[in-house]
């Protein structure tokens, strides 16, 4: 039997699912930021071998489809005898994916500071963590803000791919609703609107930040 869905039912269901889209985006962003800071520290302090390993990781994640990354992470866990939920696989994968891009953005922001800033810290006797915390980060954050916010838009949009491995975020719920109502035009239109409402303000913010950092 075909169920009757009012417009409000559809919107309510999509809004409910949007919470999972947001939750996954926040986890990927938070986890990704922490992992990126670890990698950034390694890149700035370790030798050539560690740097090569890190840039291999970055190139692999930037050079392959996220959908493949999701499948591989999802199917890799069972290989070592661990069953994971789509939520866990999606989180792990998107954290790794986000770090591969954020590292590029943040590293180039740090590197674009004049060498004199590092030298001044050194002759004043600041330790590496103090230099990072008090001198490098406050300046790098300004430079990296616009591209980082721009990347968050990509991240939010890419959470839609986790529907393919069965994570019940907004796109997945949209697909389920479509199957139940046979109103794809309306539902995918609303779905697009949902993403647009999340992403458009961030895109605007990114553009504003870009203007002010110049």
């Amino acid at each position, binding site marked *: 039997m075909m169920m009757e869905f009012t417009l409000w039912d559809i919107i309510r269901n999509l809004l409910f699912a949007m919470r999972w889209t947001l939750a996954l985006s926040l986890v990927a962003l938070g986890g990704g930021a922490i992992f990126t800071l670890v990698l950034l520290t390694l890149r700035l302090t370790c030798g050539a071998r560690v740097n090569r390993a890190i840039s291999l990781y970055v190139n692999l994640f930037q050079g392959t489809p996220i959908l493949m990354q999701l499948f591989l992470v999802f199917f890799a866990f069972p290989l070592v005898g661990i069953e994971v939920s789509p939520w866990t696989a999606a989180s792990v994968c998107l954290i790794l994916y986000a770090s591969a891009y954020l590292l590029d953005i943040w590293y180039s922001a740090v590197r674009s500071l004049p060498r004199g800033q590092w030298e001044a810290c*050194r*002759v*004043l*006797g*600041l*330790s*590496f963590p103090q230099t990072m915390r*008090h*001198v490098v980060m406050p300046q790098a954050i*300004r430079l990296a803000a616009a591209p980082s916010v721009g990347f968050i838009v990509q991240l939010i949009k890419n959470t839609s791919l986790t529907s393919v491995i069965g994570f019940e975020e907004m796109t997945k719920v949209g697909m389920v609703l479509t199957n139940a109502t046979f109103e794809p035009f309306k539902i995918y239109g609303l779905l697009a609107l949902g993403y647009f409402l999340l992403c458009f303000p961030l895109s605007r913010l990114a553009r504003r930040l870009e203007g002010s950092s110049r």
Partner: protein
Amino acid sequence: MNIMTICSLQKYYGDNHVLKGIDLNIRQGESVAIIGQSGSGKSTLLRCMNGLEDYQEGWIRFGNMLITSDEKKAREISRSIGMIFQQFNLFPHLTAAENVMLAPRLVLGLPEKECRTLAEEMLEKVGLGERMDYYPSGLSGGQQQRVAIARALAMKPRMLLCDEITSALDPELVGEVLKVVEQLASEGLSLVLVTHEMAFARDVANRVVFMHKGKIHEEGPAKELFRHPQTAELEQFISRARAGL
């Protein structure tokens, strides 16, 4: 008494032999000007003196501390040797006072309030007591360089290295910076200055070191050296500098 001793210092950048056996003593309370053409190795020598650059042979001693470019030594060196750069290298996201306070707070561990008083005192000393809460972008080049001097002095160094500190300044701003340095010299702070300002080297430095092709070509008391250069190279250098002025 010697505050710093440099003995047969050799430095290479790859195949490029930049310092070819430097022997130099800096005495307590003395101000030494290092002059020479660009590429003569004078800035490199200065940067070796506080471990910003490494060297391959010889040694540099400051008191009983051996100066090397080892990162771990940087903190210890910073407590005794200050440095001022050509490009100021102020931290653009911090105010003048915050620039001065940063190292005393983080490296010496002084309490916030004491740091603030110290910053006031140091900025007053360089004539910028009124500009404490300005950001570097709101200051002229000469003012920025004076903040950089205050920042270095706040660490109470026993010796101060100045690396072409007026080269990035408009001519009319050079005087205000040199006046501060002159005052420091008269107070008995040990100074080593790499400089293009010949008049300044002559009037302020006790001793002038002329570097040529990675070696100390000639040295002596400032006025003596300028009046009676012993080598053709120095004579030529001085007359060129005069022509340029």
